[in-house]
């Protein structure tokens, strides 16, 4: 008979990767996810994708510019960020990540500039807001397809590396069985792509007239596919854990299975994914609801993995209980990141209004 054990004295370790980290992984995921959605219209010139791809590019840009700030804020010594470049450590995926992020962002900014140049020039010609700045940024407003493709290649390399490192960096943490599953990077990627599609759908809905219904339907199909893949990956994870075929997954499952909180989170995730899938297939509507649902799932997944994962003690009994602090180490981190996101969105859409991004290019395409 196994005696019952009650822990009477032990240290409760605090969350060390703060909500800032959740925001970073959420935003950088949305960014590369949305960037992938920009490819059909802008690089592959698929008919009907032009407007939505430009909206997705805006989403990638706003999220991509916000994400590193959240990452920086998650450091407890943000002023020492330059140490990443002064003391490169090849054994650390985080160290590599410090180099991958600039590659991605350089490519993204270049790609976005090349893609938006003609629209910026038109905005300036028509006397839109900040016309002078738009004219200067357009720098002639030429459309350069070869340069765009070259920038897309650079961005692709950066995006692939960012997707890889953000997944592997967490997956490698053997001390946390929940993180240490080979499926985690896949789950990050699939939910990131779904989130990117979701944000583009929300932008599309914000266009005058609610956006192009055909584009909404196309996006809904793509979103439905991501949800299907997410469910399949989740099912594989669960089967591997329940069957004991994969000790890593079994250990991860065993860690969280006794917790009521985790059961609720799991049911929540499955229901949200199924509802998104069903709505996307049967009633995509304006795309707003499914878009928001996809964004919600992408964020919840990261919150659960990072914050929930850190609530599991590595040695002690039971679970640590986390309460979101209201200050910079908690709620303000989330609000602050959202505030920066909104600021960048306002600045960019003042320079190049949403309807111009989403609609004008169809005329020229």
């Amino acid at each position, binding site marked *: 008979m196994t005696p019952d054990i009650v822990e009477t004295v032990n240290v409760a370790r*605090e969350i060390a990767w703060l909500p800032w980290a959740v925001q970073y992984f959420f935003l950088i995921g949305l960014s590369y996810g949305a960037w992938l959605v920009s490819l059909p219209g802008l690089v592959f010139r698929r008919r009907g994708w032009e407007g939505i791809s430009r909206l997705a590019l805006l989403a990638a840009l706003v999220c991509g510019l916000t994400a590193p700030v959240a990452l920086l804020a998650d450091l407890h010594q943000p002023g020492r960020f330059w140490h990443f470049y002064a003391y490169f*450590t090849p054994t650390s995926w985080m160290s590599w990540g410090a180099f991958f992020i600039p590659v991605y962002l350089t490519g993204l900014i270049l790609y976005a500039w090349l893609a938006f140049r003609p629209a910026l020039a038109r905005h300036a010609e028509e006397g839109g807001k900040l016309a002078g700045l738009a004219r200067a940024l357009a720098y002639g407003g030429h459309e350069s397809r070869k340069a765009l493709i070259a920038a897309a290649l650079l961005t692709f390399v950066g995006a692939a590396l960012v997707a890889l490192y953000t997944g592997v960096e967490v997956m490698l943490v053997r001390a946390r069985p929940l993180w240490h599953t080979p499926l985690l990077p896949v789950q990050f990627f699939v939910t990131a792509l779904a989130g990117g599609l979701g944000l583009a759908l929300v932008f599309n809905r914000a266009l005058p007239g609610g956006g192009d219904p055909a584009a909404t339907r196309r996006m809904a199909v793509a979103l439905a596919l991501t949800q299907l893949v997410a469910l399949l990956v989740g099912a594989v994870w669960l089967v591997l854990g329940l069957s004991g075929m994969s000790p890593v997954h079994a250990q991860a499952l065993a860690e969280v299975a006794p917790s009521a909180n985790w059961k609720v989170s799991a049911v929540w995730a499955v229901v949200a994914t199924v509802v998104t899938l069903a709505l996307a297939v049967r009633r995509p509507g304006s795309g707003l609801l499914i878009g928001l649902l996809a964004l919600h799932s992408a964020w919840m997944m990261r919150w659960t993995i990072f914050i929930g994962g850190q609530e599991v003690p590595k*040695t002690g009994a039971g679970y640590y209980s986390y309460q979101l602090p209201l200050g910079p180490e908690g709620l303000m981190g989330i609000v602050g990141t959202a505030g920066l996101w909104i600021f960048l969105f306002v600045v960019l859409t003042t320079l190049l209004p949403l309807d111009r991004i989403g609609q004008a290019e169809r005329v020229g395409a």
Partner: protein
Amino acid sequence: MKDEEPREVSASRRAFLRGIPVLTAAAAALPAPALAADSKHHWAMLVDVRKCIGCQACTVACIQENAVPEGSFRTIVSTYSVKLADAEQPAGTYMLPRLCNHCEAPPCIPVCPVGATFKRDDGIVVVDGDRCVGCAYCVQACPYDARFINHATNKADKCTFCAHRVDAGLLPACVETCVGGARIFGDLNDPQGELRRRLDAAKAEVKVLKPEQGTEPRVFYIGLDERFQGKVEGQGTLWQPRKAHG
């Protein structure tokens, strides 16, 4: 009254320890740790759990010696109330001193993105506070929950075996203060040293925490019940220092 309390605790502990058959399990015995070749010394610690009385003197001494901020701990004696099956008493108390294991293959080192954490030639794992960016990747990677972010310095923090004291020829504060003599600190390279002699004498009983992680800890335990060797299955403590102290 003060004289009676320790006896009660001790009796319950003895009863509990008697009820643990796994203590004699030689199957889990570790091979004797290899001698470090590169350095004169290779510091390590042996914790004799049977001698720990859970007084937390080590916890307090460490806090005082290393100015550990309130609510954080470089070492602590995890204490468990354990239901007994075959004893007159309903429950016993199990004490398990925890600290950085100064692993031979420390998972905290390769993940550090700026090379701030490293293993000295004498085996002590330390953090270069001038280089640490406070990313907390090492905190995540440590399988023993031994690392934390120090709120006073905003850097990764952990037990250093009191390296500053060891370098001056002194014992770590926790060892020096240990009431029951449960912590033995010494040099693995010294065949005549107490640590080596005790490790050799207790070969079959010497264990480490989470051996399956492959970290090769250099903190060894005698009297380590296998139920406490990894993540403990039981009811978690309700005491959370940060909440208690605001």
